[in-house]
């Protein structure tokens, strides 16, 4: 019993962590939180099921197309919901514009795809076991993403440029860095990561339009607790969240588990409004 809690807790925690990373990447590029992060997860799951199950494409093709779909949504988010409101950050219009866009996509999915959860395909032709692919695929996705981001930020010039924009936007602009293009690329990257979360977690979460609001909330918890823009904090907090949720599920059952998670979240957040790692974690990746 304990192993299944740990397995499912870590797996779902990895999904939450990936959504949190999507939030963080968008935030680092624009100083703005976008409500579309959870929607990206939903899109990854639905596109995966659409391309592989409904249209019969091979798994790798469905994977790439799902990621591309996520990247596209990320780009649309930047152009439509973020760029126009960057000049009036004080009014917090980005909350409303990204909420509106997220709802548009969610509702479209609900109407066209349907409001029932649809099955998500098994991706690898391996027999079912205790340590099944539905658990280790999200973990693998999380590890790969972390490694890839690390390589990107540390060893490529574009990655350095992302860090520069996140640390000091004014100096980056003055230096001549292509701020707008880099921001657009960041949102595309965040889109792909969000879609990856939904795709890798598809066998756990299924292709379900209601994943969007759920991931929007649970994907944000690691951001709030780990510190804004702090990916390492997000991963740790995501795993803790996943384990806590699964444990609560087992002990008191679904709905009370949600209440427990939410209550714990609110209490911790009120005690540490800048996250457990504190404000100094802001510039870390």
């Amino acid at each position, binding site marked *: 019993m304990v192993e299944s809690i740990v397995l499912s807790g870590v797996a779902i925690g990895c999904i939450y962590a990936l959504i949190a990373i999507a939030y963080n990447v968008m935030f680092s590029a624009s100083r703005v939180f976008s409500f579309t992060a959870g929607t990206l997860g939903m899109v990854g799951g639905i596109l995966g099921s659409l391309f592989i199950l409904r249209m019969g494409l091979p798994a790798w093709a469905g994977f790439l197309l799902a990621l591309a779909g996520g990247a596209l949504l990320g780009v649309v988010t930047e152009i439509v919901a973020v760029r126009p*409101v960057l000049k009036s950050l004080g009014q917090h219009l980005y909350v409303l514009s990204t909420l*509106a866009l997220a*709802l548009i996509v969610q*509702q479209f999915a609900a*109407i066209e795809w349907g409001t029932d959860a649809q099955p998500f395909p098994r991706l690898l032709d391996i027999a079912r076991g205790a340590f099944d692919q539905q658990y280790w695929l999200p973990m693998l996705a999380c590890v790969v993403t972390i490694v890839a981001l690390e390589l990107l930020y540390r060893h490529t010039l574009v990655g350095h440029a992302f860090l520069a924009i996140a640390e000091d936007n004014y100096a980056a602009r003055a230096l001549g860095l292509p701020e707008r293009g880099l921001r657009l690329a960041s949102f595309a990257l965040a889109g792909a990561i969000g879609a990856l979360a939904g795709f890798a977690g598809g066998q756990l979460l299924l292709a379900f339009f209601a994943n969007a609001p759920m991931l929007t909330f649970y994907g944000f918890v690691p951001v709030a607790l780990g510190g804004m823009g702090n990916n390492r904090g997000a991963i740790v907090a995501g795993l803790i969240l996943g384990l806590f949720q699964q444990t609560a599920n087992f002990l008191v059952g679904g709905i009370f588990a949600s209440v427990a998670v939410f209550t714990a979240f609110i209490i911790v957040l009120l005690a540490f*409004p800048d996250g457990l790692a504190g404000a100094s974690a802001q510039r870390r990746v």
Partner: protein
Amino acid sequence: MTEASTAQGQPARATQWGSGAISHVLPFLVLLVIGLTLPLFAGGYWGVIATRACVYWALVSGLNLLVGFAGQLAIGWVALLTLGAYTTSVLAAGNVLPALDPYLALAIAAMVGAVLGLIIGLPALRLRTFYFAITTLGFATIVTQIALAWASVTGGGVGVPGPVFPPPFDSQWGFYYFCFAIAVVCTWMTMNVAASRFGRALTAIRDAEVAAEACGISKSRLLIAVFLFSGALAGIAGGLFASLQSYITPDAFTIELSVLFFIGVLIGGRGSILGPLLGTILLTVLPEFAAPLVAWSTFLYAVLLLVIVLAIPGGIAELLDFKSRRPLHSDRAIVPRPELLRRLLGEREDRGALTLEQVRLSFGGVRAIDGLDLTILPGQVHGLIGPNGSGKTTTLNVISGYYTPQQGVARLNEVVLTTLAHHARAEMRIARTFQTPRLVGEASVLENVMIGGTIDGQGSFAESLFSLPRHRRDEAKLRESAMLALQTVGLEPLAGVRTDRLQHSELRFIEIARALMLRPAFLLLDEPAAGLSAEEIRRLGALVVAIAQAGTGVLLVEHHADLIFDICHHVTVLNLGKMLAAGTPAEIRSHREVVNAYLGG
């Protein structure tokens, strides 16, 4: 300087206020008449729609104060509708306790709504905007899930019947009039708040929080009052909703409904009552016009929200704001009338000097202020100058309470300032202006100046809800003082103009008028001359001198050497957070080190 400012072709004031008041109330009267006479021309079906609009408006009117006025993005406010609906239904049905009279159940729902509204709202005082928005969403989900799970009380997924109100409200039209009456009362109360100093204080918190603090507005006290009030309204709306539906289940309370309410406020526009009212009616009625669109309704609402945010952030209210489209005269002069200061400031007792003693303040590793002593005497203009980074504005911020020094104290007479809360300076009659004017752009000039006198009102929030006599007296006095303050600074003809239409120099003088509303013992001016023309600087200087002569101690932080040397009695020069020199302007002017440091050398 001595000519009275002429009303350049503006209509006479009395007519302006008169016609303004009527055009303000007219739309509400029209809606009132339509609402009262509805059964005469509308069938039963539309009666239900109208009832639903009234119920929604009961909730949205409160949410409007929260979102539109206070700027708190409570996206998950539907949680209170759920709570109110279930509380009323369960108490009226007698599942838990013996069945209660539905009116009593409704009243209890209001109280429960108030308390939960406070609980949901309190994180707003501590969390960032986005964080708060997400937590309200979480609340909404949790409340619905509890309704689903707590089957013994709420009937779980099966639900409970809604309360039925006794005759004459048990018929369809009877119930309509009941809801309509409540909607009218909600409109009246929120209009009262909007027009009161609390409403203005809310917009100040939303758009100019630091300035609001400097005026003595306590954000937490005010928000608590609004969360309680809005929560109560939402609770009542819930009870009415349950009655309207006749039967409620958890899936009636969706996030989509919550977003609908939110969009209603935003379509209507911030800081308006009429706008969100029309917005709510629009959103309730819209789905009825296109049956096939019902499935797409939330989609369309979201598109509408996006369009509004990007294209017309001001919403319907902005579209209806014809007054703000009338062109302003292009050559407007600001002509202060310092002779009015005695009347405005009144007789004040000498409160002693304002002193800083050995103040030290560091940010991270940087010593912003490094052992500073400063004394500002009443009746004098004290200049504070120095190169960039010398700590001038930081010093002013320490006095006004924005920063707390690590060492040393700021004192007014005997009272230590540095341990007081942010907003306590105003009660000590210390007022300030800001380097960049911090005003509520969408409010009129007069409203912005009235914000400065918020703490002098005696009526409570509850009194303002019902527009009780003491509150009305407060308002009249406040309005009179504000007009006098505007006359003093020379901006009276612009009193009714929307503030964000004005030039920078006018904004500066509005800030001074607002500061004068406190009848300050000490006035802190943060680079007031920046961006003013030479003539305006001269008039500013004369005004500041007159303010000092009336007994106020003025601290003038400035770059403009001319202004400093012209009007200051005493000048302190800062460099690297320490006092470099102090003395009369003549002494400073010829002080070699000062010239070098100030000019750079």
